[in-house]
């Protein structure tokens, strides 16, 4: 499932990431535990938090990040 479609308050683990250099420079990588904090309407970005930091990710990019829910 992509992180854009991910619903719920649980954390999820990133399984696969697209090759976007800035994403990894911002500290996002495979195997990382993240939480989806908010999703903007009308094709806006989602905000993902990891630890005490948050990153806004565009819909197109978020659609390519695959995650697995942590129960």
């Amino acid at each position, binding site marked *: 499932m992509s992180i854009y479609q991910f619903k719920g308050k649980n954390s999820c683990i990133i399984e696969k990431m697209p090759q976007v250099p800035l994403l990894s420079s911002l500290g996002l990588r495979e195997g990382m535990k993240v939480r989806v904090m908010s999703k903007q309407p009308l094709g*806006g970005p989602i905000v993902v938090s990891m630890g005490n930091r948050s990153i806004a990710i565009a819909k197109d990019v978020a659609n390519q990040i695959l995650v697995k829910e942590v129960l």
Partner: protein
Amino acid sequence: MSCHTKEPEIHIEEGQIKVLLMGNPNVGKSVVFSKLTGMDVIASNYTGTTVTFTKGNIQHQGNHGVLIDVPGTYSLEATSPAEEVAVNMLDNEKADVIICVLDATNLERNLNFALQLQKYQIPIIFALNLTDVAEQQGISVDIDKLSVELGAPVVPTVAIRNIGLRDILKQAWIMAEKKTVDYGDIPENQDERWQRVGRIIQQVQQVEHRHPTLLEKLGDALIRPLTGIPASIIILALALGIVVGGGKGIRGLILLPLLNNFYVPFITNIVSTFLSEGLIFNVLVGEYGMLIKGIEWPFALILPYVFLFYIVLSFLEDSGYLPRLAVLVDSMLQRIGIQGGNIVPMIMGYGCAVPAILGTRASTSQKERIIVASVVSLAVPCAAQTGAFIALLGDRSVLVLVLVYLISLLAMFIGGMVLNKMIPGKSDPILLEIPNLLMPDRQSYLKKIYLRTKHFMLEAEVPMLLGVGFAALVAETGALNAVGGFIEPIIEGWLGLPREATIGLILGVIRRELAVLPLLELDLSTLQLLVASVVALFYLPCLSVLGVLIKEFRIKIALAIGISTFFLAFFIGGLINQVVTLVSMLL
């Protein structure tokens, strides 16, 4: 643009050391720079892809050195213009020492950068900054262990309060003595490097789980659509209220009475003791008197708005609200071909278009840069022009004032959509770090407002004086009548304005507010006020803006922007005049 080692660009004197200041964006690097060098830099807000760097002098116990502020980057892979600058500096500048600023609240990502930097085998001192904020968040870092892990000195700092900065300088000269260092094998491979970062973090960092503070909860609420969108409307309305309402108050209650009751009689008296009434007398203290309007316009009509605008903008910037706003407006801005982050230069444009256009360097694609720069040049009134609009329309017709700003928003939207269709290419998707919501530090907040206001007024005063002097000469000598026949069909026929309005259009080339202010002296109908204001709004961006456009985008694009705004101004202004006149005739 080559990978070979070139001659260093920055020269130092015998006995000086050369120090590079590096780090991730938004770690307080520019604060460190201005505190160490004693230089006032606010330009640091607009780094990103800047190809220019700032340098300043540092000294410690009689030793002298040069500190170079390198643009903040997330990595050293030369994938963006800012990173290219950083990599070139590391390759070519033959620095003695690097001061690398680390954000203690975000150590993991910062250490990844630190390790990449160590590959260059130049002596490094690490400044672990923002340790106070980290502490509030329950993050503690073992400085000694981190120093061992990195094989380099680590100094805890709170740059904004001068804590730890002296130690940094001391260490800089100690490390410069060393000449060579060996940081061992640094993993080339990204995954291995992150693994090493992970190991270091486990060794040195402890995070105590805390309940989120009120500010953290607020920060989260501001980014959720349900709470964030209403909040953004309230915040922007409040900002507008402070600038417009506050500006009117300061102007009407304090500045204008001071000016009219004390200054004007005083200066007129002085001049009349030296001069008898005549051309020179009128140029100095007459209708467009340089000593009257040259003081009244900039100080009583413009200054209050500029000052209040920077109070609001600096607060929004320092608190970390703007990136949140960027997330909320992203889907809207996508319609005009730019991503949400560009809201920041657009808002800056309401202060002055020059920093706004420089600020577009942070947008990654050229397409976005051109769209933002064009929209700001065309339809965003600067703080000075806002002051002028309020002076002109505030008392006579608030309806026209509101209408002018609605037309401005509409033009931004339509202009953006047209440019999005015209300019090939795609804009980059939004990828933005959301910083913690913070209460701005009082001292640096006040300093920022002071510096910006001072800078603006210094920039404004000389051209304004010259402009007013020119207007006075033209008005007094009747030179306007000479060109009258030539411009009559456009000004009087098409726009329906009196011939004297031409003065504003001539002066508007110099500064945007000067296209509006001369209208104050004319007796215009409501329709004329609207038409003249719309023409002034879209009219040429001022000389400084044209200069920046040429510098940033070359002459061709700058000319295209200038010429299209010029024609749009006359076209739309005249259209409004003709349509309203026609409709009122039919009714």
